[in-house]
């Protein structure tokens, strides 16, 4: 799959991957649609859509409350909600829709099966953590945290930032990318020897799709959880 041609285009001197832009846009529109249609006719007594939306908000707030101090959860609520919804739909969409051009370049798949997308979100989390630390503790206390428990811990602290950044982004990428790759492999198996392999491959495909759907949800949850943990680490003074 890594040998496949990649469709790219240039814009403002930057290189864009068509697949990332198209699938990112589709997920964006999906999130907007979900949020828009569930938030119509808000009432004190919630109905179907509103119930779902409120449950989702409570769910993501619950994830944040797990690690961020209760007084600060409100400031990260919107971010956590958006991140979870976007990542969840990103993880799932590639399982159902995959589009490729005639030459073999994919233009529609999970946005999170590309490391550049996941690492972007990971970088965003790290930056939010830095900003939150400075906002909460001030510059001095924030950067002093890197030299705890003693001054020589500084290189390890800095290195930890990079490992956090990489593991956070690559974990979700790995799971989603491998899930989609295996779906592709099973598809190759299905079409290899006509109807016989098709019948054999069908249950395997279904099982793997279900498992991937589950993994996609888990990974979105894990990403938001770990992000809130990284942020909460920056919000408190280390002893």
């Amino acid at each position, binding site marked *: *799959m*890594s040998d496949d041609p990649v469709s*790219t285009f240039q*814009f*403002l001197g*930057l*290189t*864009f*991957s068509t697949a*990332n*832009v198209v699938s*990112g*846009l589709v997920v*964006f529109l999906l*999130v*907007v649609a979900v*949020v*828009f249609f*569930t*938030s119509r006719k*808000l*009432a*004190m007594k*919630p109905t179907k859509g*509103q119930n779902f*939306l*409120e449950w989702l*908000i409570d769910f993501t707030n619950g994830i944040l409350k797990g690690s961020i101090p209760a007084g600060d959860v409100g400031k990260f*609520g*919107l*971010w956590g*909600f*958006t*991140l979870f*919804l*976007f990542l969840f739909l990103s993880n799932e969409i590639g399982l159902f829709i995959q589009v490729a051009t005639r030459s073999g370049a994919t233009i529609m798949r999970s*946005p999170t*099966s*590309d*490391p*550049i*997308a996941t*690492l*972007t*979100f990971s*970088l*965003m989390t790290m930056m939010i953590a830095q900003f939150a630390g400075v906002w909460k503790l001030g510059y001095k206390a924030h950067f002093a945290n890197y030299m705890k428990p003693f001054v020589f811990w500084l290189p390890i602290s800095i290195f930890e930032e990079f490992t956090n950044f990489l593991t956070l982004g690559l974990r979700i990428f790995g799971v989603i*990318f491998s899930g989609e790759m295996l779906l592709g492999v099973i598809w190759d198996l299905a079409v290899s020897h006509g109807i016989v392999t098709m019948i054999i491959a069908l249950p395997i495909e279904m099982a793997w799709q279900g498992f991937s759907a589950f993994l996609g949800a888990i990974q979105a949850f894990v990403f938001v959880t770990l992000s809130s943990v990284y942020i909460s680490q920056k919000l408190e003074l280390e002893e």
Partner: protein
Amino acid sequence: MLSHLVVGQTLYFGDSLFYIISFVLLMWIIKIFAWGPVTKMMQDRADKISNDIDSAEKSRTDAASLVEKRQAALANSRSEAQTIVSDAKTNGQQQREQIVTQAQADVQTMKQNAQKDIEQERQDALSDARNDVADLSIEIASKIIQRELKADDQKALIDSYIEGLGKQHES
């Protein structure tokens, strides 16, 4: 696909920028359409529930105090009614005695008056009867005397009339 990360290959920084911008835009859209109104609604609901609990507690205590007040008023009115009834009783007793005494006194007076009147009437009747008897006896006597005189003393009677006439003229 991992080849993106290998140094020397093209890194799609444009995608990074695209995702950051779209994420921020998404956050903004969600805030306007859903997050703001929904969290406000959830907060309103929480406030309403706590208000309802408070007001329920308040109305419960209100009702309790109202019951207490009513009980007190009831007891008060009962004792008041008792007082009124006993007052009325004593008043009635007094009035009855007064009326009876008054009546007795009236009867006494009327009796005395009646006796006086009867005595008066009796005296009057007696004197009337006495006069009548005197008149009657005089008339009877005069009639008897007249009949005896007719035959014998016509002349004397005429004389007496004439004399009477003369006396009437004189007077």
